[in-house]
C-alpha cells in the first residue's frame, strides 16, 4: 500500500512534470519546423542563451527571481481554490506603490529603506488583488474575469501616473519614467560582474515562508479548507468570504513583491511601457509545481531559463521569443491532463485525478 502510494507520488510529482516539459519542447519544435526554421538550431540557441557561460546563467537566475514570487502567488491562490489570472496587474501596481515609497522617502539606512519599499510594493499588490477577492466573496463575480479586467486598468493607471507631470513623472527626463529610488532601497549585486541581485536571496527565503504559511499556520489551514470544500469550511465556522479576500490579497502581495523586487534589483525606476506575459507565465509555473511552494523553485528556474534563452534565440535564429508560450501551453496541457501522460506510459488510471482548481460546489459562473 505504501509502496503503491510512493509510486503514485513519483509519477504525479516527478514523472508527469518531466514528461510534460519534454512533450512541451516536442510540440514547440513542431511549431518551429512549421515556420521553416530548424528546431535543433533554435533550441541550441535557447540553451546557449540560458546556460553556457557564467553571465548567461546569472541572467537566467535574474529572470528566475520574479517568477519565484509570481509562481508562489498564483500557487497560494490555487490552494484556496482561486484562479488568480491577474498576477501581471498586481506586479505593476506593486512596482508602482513600492517605487513611490522608494523615491519619496529618502535618507533612511538600507535595513529600513529597502524593506519599507518592499512592504509598500506588497501592500499595493495585496490591495489590488483583494479587490477581485472582495468582488468574488461579496457578489460572486468570478475572479478570472475581474482580475483580467483589473490587469488592463492597472496598465492604464501605471501609464497615467508615470506620464503625468506632478504625479510620478520624473522631472527633466526624455522618456517618461519615475524618479530613481533612494540608493539605500536598491538591492545590492551579489555576483560581481553580473546583474544578479539580492532579490534572488529574498526569493529563496520566500519559498519556505510561503510553505510555512500554507502548511503550518491557522490562516493556511483556513485557506486550504476553503479551497478544498467551502461548505465544510463554512460549517466549521470559518468565514469563507474573509478567507477568499485574504487569500487573493496574499496572492497579489507576492505578485507585488515580484514587481518591486524587479525595480529595486534592476531598473531602479518604472517606465510607462509594460511588457506583457508575466501573468500567464505565473500560472504555468504554479501548475507545473502542482501548487507546492518547493516545486516553484525548479519550475521558476525552468521558466527563467526559457525567458532568458528565448531572447538570445530570437536574436540568433529569428524564431520569435513567443515560442516559449507554446512550450508553456503544451506543458500545462500535459500537466493538467495526467490521463494523457499515463496513456503514453500505459500506466493504470487509478488515483490520477486531474488538477481541480475551481472548487466543486458554490461555483460561480464564468
Amino acid at each position: 500500500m505504501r509502496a503503491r502510494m510512493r509510486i503514485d507520488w513519483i509519477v504525479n510529482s516527478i514523472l508527469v512534470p518531466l514528461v510534460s516539459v519534454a512533450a512541451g519542447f516536442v510540440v514547440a519544435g513542431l511549431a518551429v519546423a512549421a515556420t521553416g526554421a530548424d528546431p535543433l538550431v533554435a533550441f541550441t540557441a535557447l540553451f546557449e542563451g540560458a546556460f553556457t557561460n557564467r553571465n548567461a546563467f546569472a541572467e537566467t537566475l535574474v529572470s528566475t527571481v520574479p517568477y519565484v514570487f509570481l509562481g508562489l502567488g498564483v500557487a497560494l491562490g490555487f490552494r484556496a481554490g482561486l484562479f488568480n489570472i491577474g498576477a501581471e496587474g498586481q506586479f505593476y501596481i506593486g512596482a508602482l506603490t513600492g517605487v513611490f515609497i522608494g523615491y519619496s522617502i529618502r535618507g533612511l539606512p538600507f535595513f529600513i529603506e529597502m524593506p519599507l519599499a518592499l512592504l509598500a510594493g506588497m501592500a499595493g499588490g495585496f490591495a489590488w488583488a483583494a479587490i477581485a477577492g472582495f468582488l468574488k466573496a461579496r457578489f460572486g463575480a468570478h475572479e478570472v474575469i475581474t482580475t483580467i479586467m483589473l490587469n488592463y486598468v492597472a496598465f492604464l493607471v501605471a501609464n497615467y501616473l508615470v506620464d503625468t507631470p506632478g504625479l510620478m513623472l520624473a522631472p527633466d527626463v526624455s522618456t517618461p519614467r519615475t524618479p530613481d529610488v533612494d540608493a539605500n532601497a536598491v538591492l545590492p549585486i551579489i555576483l560581481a560582474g553580473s546583474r544578479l541581485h539580492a532579490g534572488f536571496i529574498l526569493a529563496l527565503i520566500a519559498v519556505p515562508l510561503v510553505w510555512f504559511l500554507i502548511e503550518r499556520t491557522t490562516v493556511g489551514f483556513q485557506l486550504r479548507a476553503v479551497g478544498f470544500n467551502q461548505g465544510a469550511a463554512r460549517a466549521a465556522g470559518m468565514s469563507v468570504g474573509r478567507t477568499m479576500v485574504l487569500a487573493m490579497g496574499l496572492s497579489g502581495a507576492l505578485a507585488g513583491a515580484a514587481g518591486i523586487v524587479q525595480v529595486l534589483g534592476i531598473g531602479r525606476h518604472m517606465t510607462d511601457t509594460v511588457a506583457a506575459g508575466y501573468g500567464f507565465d505565473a500560472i504555468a509555473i504554479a501548475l507545473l509545481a502542482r501548487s507546492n511552494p518547493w516545486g516553484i523553485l525548479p519550475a521558476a528556474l525552468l521558466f527563467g531559463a526559457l525567458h532568458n534563452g528565448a531572447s538570445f534565440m530570437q536574436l540568433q535564429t529569428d524564431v520569435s521569443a513567443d515560442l516559449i508560450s507554446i512550450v508553456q501551453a503544451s506543458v500545462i496541457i500535459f500537466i493538467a491532463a495526467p490521463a494523457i501522460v499515463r496513456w503514453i506510459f500505459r500506466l493504470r488510471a487509478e488515483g490520477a485525478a486531474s488538477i481541480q482548481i475551481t472548487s466543486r460546489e458554490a461555483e460561480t459562473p464564468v
Partner: protein
Amino acid sequence: MTSFLSQLDPISLLSITLVTATPLTLAALGGMMCERSGVVNIALEGIMLTGAFVGYAVAFATHNLWVGVLAAIAAGMLIAALHAALSINFLVDQIVSGTVINILAVGITGVFYRNFIESQNTAGPGTLPQWNVPFLSGIPVLGPIFFQNQFVTFAMLALIVIVHFTLFHTVWGLRTRACGEHPRAAETAGINVYFVRYVNVIASGALAGLGGAYFSLQQIGNFLPGMTGGRGFIGLAAMIFGQWTPVGAFLASLLFAGSDQVGSRLQSVFHVPIPLQFLGMLPYVLTIVVVAGAMGRAVAPAAVGRPYKKS
C-alpha cells in the same frame, strides 16, 4: 441644444457603437453556445486572436478576403476542438483548459507573425467592403446604423437571431440546454452528452473565429500581436450580463462598446478634461462593475464548468 446634438452626431455614434460591439457580441454568442451545453469557455480571447491571425494570413496569401474569413472561422473551430477534447474527454479543469488556449494563441500567432508577416513589405489584403443594403440603407437614422456595414457586422446581426432560434426553438437547443442543466438526466433521456457538448464548443469556436476576423479583416486590414485586447473576456461578461440570452448579450455588448465611444466623444466634443487613460479604462471598469452587479441575479446553466463522466 441642436448644435450640441449635431456636434455629438448621435447617428455616427450609434453606428460606431454597433460596429465596435460586433466582436463582443460574437464572443458572447460563442460563450453562450458553449456554456448552455455545460462547458465554460474563457478561451474566447485566444480563439479570437487565432481567428484574427489565420484570417489575415490566409487573406494575405490568397489575396482573397473571403477565403480569409472562412479560414478565421475554421481556425476558431480547430482550436475550440482542442478545448473540447481537453475539457470533455480528458476532464481537464475547464478554466485551465481555456487558459492553455489563451497562452497557446499568443505563442502561435506570435511565432508565425514574426516569420511570415512582419517582414512582408507588400500591401495587405485591405478590409472587407462596405455594403449598403438596397432600399433599406436609405431609411433615415436606421439606414446608416444598421444597413450600411461591413460583412462581419451584418453576420453578427443575423447570428443573434440564428443563435436565439437555435437555442430556444429547436430540438438541438433543447438538448443543448438539457446537457448544461442536468447532463445525467439528459443522458438518461438518450442524449449523447459528449457529442452535444463537442458540437457546441466547436460552434463557439466558429463564432469567436469570425469575431477574430473582425479585428484583422474588417477593422484595420492588418494583424498586430495581441490585437484582441481582452475583448473575448468582455464578451464573456456581456454574456453573463445578458443572462445567457442572445438579445441580452447583444444589448450588453452595445453598452460596453458605447461606453468606449461616449468617453472619447466627451473629450473631443465637449473638451471634458479627462485623461486619455481614464477613458481607456471605462469598458474594463464597467465590465467589472457589471459582472459584480449582475452575478447576484444571473442564473447560469446549472452544470456549467463541471466535467461530465459517462457512467
